[in-house]
């Protein structure tokens, strides 16, 4: 039982990170109907940005209070990653609206390759060990038997995720920005006729997705303690799986899918085999797409001619 609880704690932590990334996929898909293939690499880039800023703050500027440093890192990483996402959308995706079917997807793949190799070239191909921070744990259960540990990092991750999702939910549901986004999602042409700046709204969607991915990047970096230029690929596909599982286009679905994928991955590794945990996730992706393409909470897709 303790073992199970431990796995659930780990799964929810991992699932929170996937959920944050998945929102970026699901929002972009909802609004312009494309798989933003570069999103996983934006996430990886944000982890590097967060790492570099953290090092710069502690080593060059000498800011010692950890909470303050982390807050600055969080804000700066969100801003700088959003800037990247904005530039990518402006440069690589916007000129392709109305081009042939595969064009945006190929462009996105090109961007993904570019980003991961950019980080490889500028930061080097080796693993980057992150300075140890927030190492404390809470321990529960019988000290003689199997104990359940809950680390500060895990609490931080779940708390930050919950907080940001609430803020995000508020923006999408309660503000005029969110209303414009939902309008564009339903009918872009009609929204434009009614005075919604569609280009700006789409840019904003990319920016919001990237900001959440930056949070995920920071949390990922702290949680795993190591980052690598190829780290965007597998978490990116898993987060996309989460978005598909939850029903692509649906925001609660993305979070639910993220948590489910996190739990499945951790439980699979805990009870079956660590080697095949990625195979399990990728198989879920295939199975869901083939048998349940609208996901758990999504709307069935209607093909328009």
């Amino acid at each position, binding site marked *: 039982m303790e073992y199970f609880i431990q796995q659930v704690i780990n799964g929810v932590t991992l699932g929170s990170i996937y959920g944050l990334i998945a929102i970026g996929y699901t929002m972009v898909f909802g609004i312009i109907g494309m798989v933003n293939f570069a999103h996983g690499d934006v996430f990886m880039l944000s982890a590097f940005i967060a790492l*570099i800023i953290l090092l710069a703050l502690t080593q060059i500027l000498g800011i010692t209070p950890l909470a303050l440093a982390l807050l600055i890192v969080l804000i700066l990483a969100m801003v700088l990653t959003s800037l990247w996402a904005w530039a990518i959308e402006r440069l*690589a995706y916007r000129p392709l609206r109305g081009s042939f079917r*595969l064009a945006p997807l190929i462009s996105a793949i*090109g961007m993904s390759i570019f980003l991961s*190799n950019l*980080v*490889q070239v500028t930061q080097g191909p080796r693993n980057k060990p992150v300075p140890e921070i927030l190492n404390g744990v809470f321990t529960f259960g019988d000290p003689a038997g199997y104990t359940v540990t809950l680390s500060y990092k895990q609490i931080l991750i779940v708390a930050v995720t919950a907080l940001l999702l609430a803020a995000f939910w508020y923006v999408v549901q309660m503000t005029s920005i969110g209303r414009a986004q939902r309008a564009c999602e339903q009918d872009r042409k009609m929204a434009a006729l009614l005075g919604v700046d569609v280009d700006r709204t789409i840019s904003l969607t990319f920016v919001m997705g990237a900001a959440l991915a930056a949070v995920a990047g920071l949390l990922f970096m702290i949680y795993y303690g190591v980052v690598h230029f190829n780290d965007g690929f597998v978490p990116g596909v898993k987060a996309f799986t989460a978005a598909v599982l939850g029903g692509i286009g649906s925001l609660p679905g993305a979070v639910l899918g993220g948590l489910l994928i996190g739990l499945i991955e951790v439980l699979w590794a805990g009870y079956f085999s660590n080697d095949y945990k990625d195979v399990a996730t990728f198989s879920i992706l295939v199975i869901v*797409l*083939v048998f349940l393409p609208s996901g758990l909470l999504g709307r069935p897709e209607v093909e328009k001619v």
Partner: protein
Amino acid sequence: MPKQSTDVRPGRAGAIAAAVKDASGTALLALGLSFPILALRTDQNMANQLVLDQRWGYVAVAVALAFLARLLYLLRLGFAAPTAPRIATPDADRAPLVRAVTIAGVVLLLAFPFLVLAAAGPTGAIKWIDNFAIQILIYVMLGWGLNIVVGLAGLLDLGYVAFYAIGAYAFALLAQHYDLGFWVCLPLAGILAAFWGVLLGFPVLRLRGDYLAIVTLAFGEIIRLVAINWVDLTRGYAGISGVPRATFFGLPFEDSEDGFAAFFGLEFLTIHRTIFFFYVILGLAAMTNWVTLRLRRLPVGRAWEALREDETACRSLGINTTNTKLTAFSLGAMFGGLAGAFYVTSRGQGFVTPESFTFMESALILAIVVLGGLGSQVGVAIAAIVLIGGTELLRELEWMKQIFGRDFEPTHYRMLIFGLAMVLVMIWKPRGVISTRMPSIFLRQRRAVRADLVGEGHG
């Protein structure tokens, strides 16, 4: 049109000022983008801790480049005359020229090993035949194979390397466990890869474009992960080594009584094997091309091209889209498998590991197809020569090493450039830079504009 330098239109100074302002904005953006990732490099010190290395010079260069690029782009855009889109006309008079060039090319290709041998000698020639010609031809074949799937049928396959891997492993396992020769294993590897293409393709080919791309990506990763983790069969990361090498119809390339050299009364040279491999891959690539060209004229080829242009219309016309996609997918897979089998015995030196089949390999093949021109055979071949041969050539250049330092490795930069090139190609010439392939058959009379000037299925 008057010369641009003497053109004094009203508001020209204003236009320049606006362009400078806009370019400054771009420079500022470049500063923001390059600030953490380019300015500060994380390096490990002796105690295995990360320290920052400040490189503001690079940032300055990046910002200046962004400023200049944007400025030049805007000025060109502001003053260049709008040119009318050219209407492509089929040039019948160029046919004899094309034919002459083709024949010259084929003759040159056939004579290539001997020309190199004469120029560089038996030891120097191995590098040129093996590193350049054979490697390029493998990628030409892979590009042509993927071209059937992506270029003709319009199915974006991001896991093409899976079939390359299946072919390679099938060849290695068959040759090792059943002691079959190269010429038996090669077609078997192709058939197995095609079989896997059907198996994987059948459930997923009814998915729409982006989903299909992701699912094929997942398949590619699953195959690689299985190859890593199924240690009993594949020996995991260690890979399968000692796969029997190809023989010349039973004559091994070795320095012995019954070897190839002794049989023909030649002096034993390792380059014999390399030359043999060159002709094998040349034949395989030629076969890929021939099959594609023939199929393009058959109903199934026409159906592929129609599918690429508009799937809904295809279905309305009664084409069985699933079967059509499946043939393209499995045929592409077969050529990938053949290339994989060949790779193991030639450049793989009888050694196969999962490391050769990463997503980057798929991406590289896709880059070849996209940059060459979706659907164009010539374009893909030229793209493979430029992309693969170019990388190898960069590795050879001494002065590049003097500029970028001794450990300059062009393969690190090549995917960076190819990735960006894919984006730019999609923006400027989505049907390919080097060549453009229009559908083999379409209504010529009633089209007012070229097919690539309009969105798909309209006009």
